[in-house]
């Protein structure tokens, strides 16, 4: 297995540090060595920067890639946006000599050079491919008998030709990981549609963005679940803080939102506080009691 550096991005360390904590706890517990990618900056976020100025987007992404190249590690991301920017930029720079030269001319000014020697991984595809569902299932100490709505997020699946993770309409790999924790992945209408946050929509068109979130939450609620499981802090923010916003228009959900590493942490025996659930906007004590009871059974 190649060495890994953890790229946390902006949103996780600066808004949802519980996800960072949970990720560190679970990686250590299941024996995956992964060191922090020091001196990393914004990936930069694909929704705004890629569309504003392609060379700036590629140059800043390549700087992060070079940091990992210098360490001789692959990059492990825990955010769909970071995965998208870093993976797409890496693929473009590996194959387009003209852009690579242009980017390297900028990087030269800070004494760096992109060489194209590493890969960018997302924790979900990494766990599914390199660890495997069965091995992950064997590591579970407290099988979570709960019902979960799995949200893949757009950038994890698309563009399908680049991601090579199978169908974007009917994906299964993330559901399989969730079910390895003992949870039941509950089907719901509109499962692979957007949470409403990405593409600069949340910042520019908040009302429209929440209409999309409401569409999703209505269908998730109808499916009857204990929680939502995501794998991107931007989707996480949209579902978590979005529920508070939608309460203002009379919509009440109270559905806890967990990043997959937080769910895995619970299944490995860590408490809800240890994986940072108490730092979410939605803190559902009934859910936490249910987890505590499950954890006591084993």
């Amino acid at each position: 297995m190649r060495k890994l550096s953890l790229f946390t991005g902006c949103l996780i360390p600066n808004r949802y540090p519980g996800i960072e904590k949970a990720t560190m706890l679970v990686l250590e517990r299941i024996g995956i060595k992964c060191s922090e990618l020091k001196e990393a900056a914004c990936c930069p976020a694909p929704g705004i920067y890629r569309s504003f100025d392609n060379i700036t987007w590629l140059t800043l992404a390549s700087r992060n890639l070079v940091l990992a190249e210098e360490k001789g590690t692959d990059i492990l991301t825990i955010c769909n946006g970071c995965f998208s920017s870093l993976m797409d930029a890496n693929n473009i720079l590996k194959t387009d000599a003209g852009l690579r030269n242009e980017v390297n001319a900028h990087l030269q000014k800070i004494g760096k050079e992109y060489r194209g020697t590493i890969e960018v991984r997302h924790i979900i595809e990494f766990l599914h491919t390199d660890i495997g569902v069965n091995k992950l299932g064997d590591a579970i100490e407290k099988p979570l008998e709960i019902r979960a709505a799995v949200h893949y997020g757009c950038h994890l699946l698309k563009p399908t030709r680049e991601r090579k993770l199978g169908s974007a309409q009917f994906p299964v790999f993330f559901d399989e990981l969730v079910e390895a924790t003992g949870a039941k992945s509950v089907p719901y209408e509109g499962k692979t549609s957007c949470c409403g946050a990405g593409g600069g929509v949340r910042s520019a068109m908040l009302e429209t963005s929440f209409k999309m979130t409401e569409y999703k939450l209505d269908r998730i609620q109808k499916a009857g679940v204990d929680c939502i499981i995501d794998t991107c802090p931007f989707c996480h923010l949209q579902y978590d803080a979005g529920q508070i916003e939608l309460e203002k228009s009379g919509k009440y959900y109270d559905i806890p939102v967990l990043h997959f590493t937080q769910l895995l942490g619970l299944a490995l025996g860590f408490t809800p506080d240890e994986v940072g659930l108490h730092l979410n906007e939605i803190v559902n004590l009934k859910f936490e009691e249910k987890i505590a009871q499950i954890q006591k059974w084993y």
Partner: protein
Amino acid sequence: VLALRSEAVKKGKILPVHRNVCNFLIETGQSIPLDDKHRDMRKKLGLRIDEASRKKALKEVKALLGSTGFEELIKK
């Protein structure tokens, strides 16, 4: 879509909220900077804040944003 948006940006057509996000990147090296509330959360979770690492990242990001002309583009 990417090309159209890029052309609009060259003409200075940037929504104020998006310009703010870009300014965060220029000023901090991150699109969502750390605030006091979340600094405190990190401490409570026992997560460190590597100020030296962030400072070096910002210095290099600023140099690159100057080199590509992005800072000038956003200030148009």
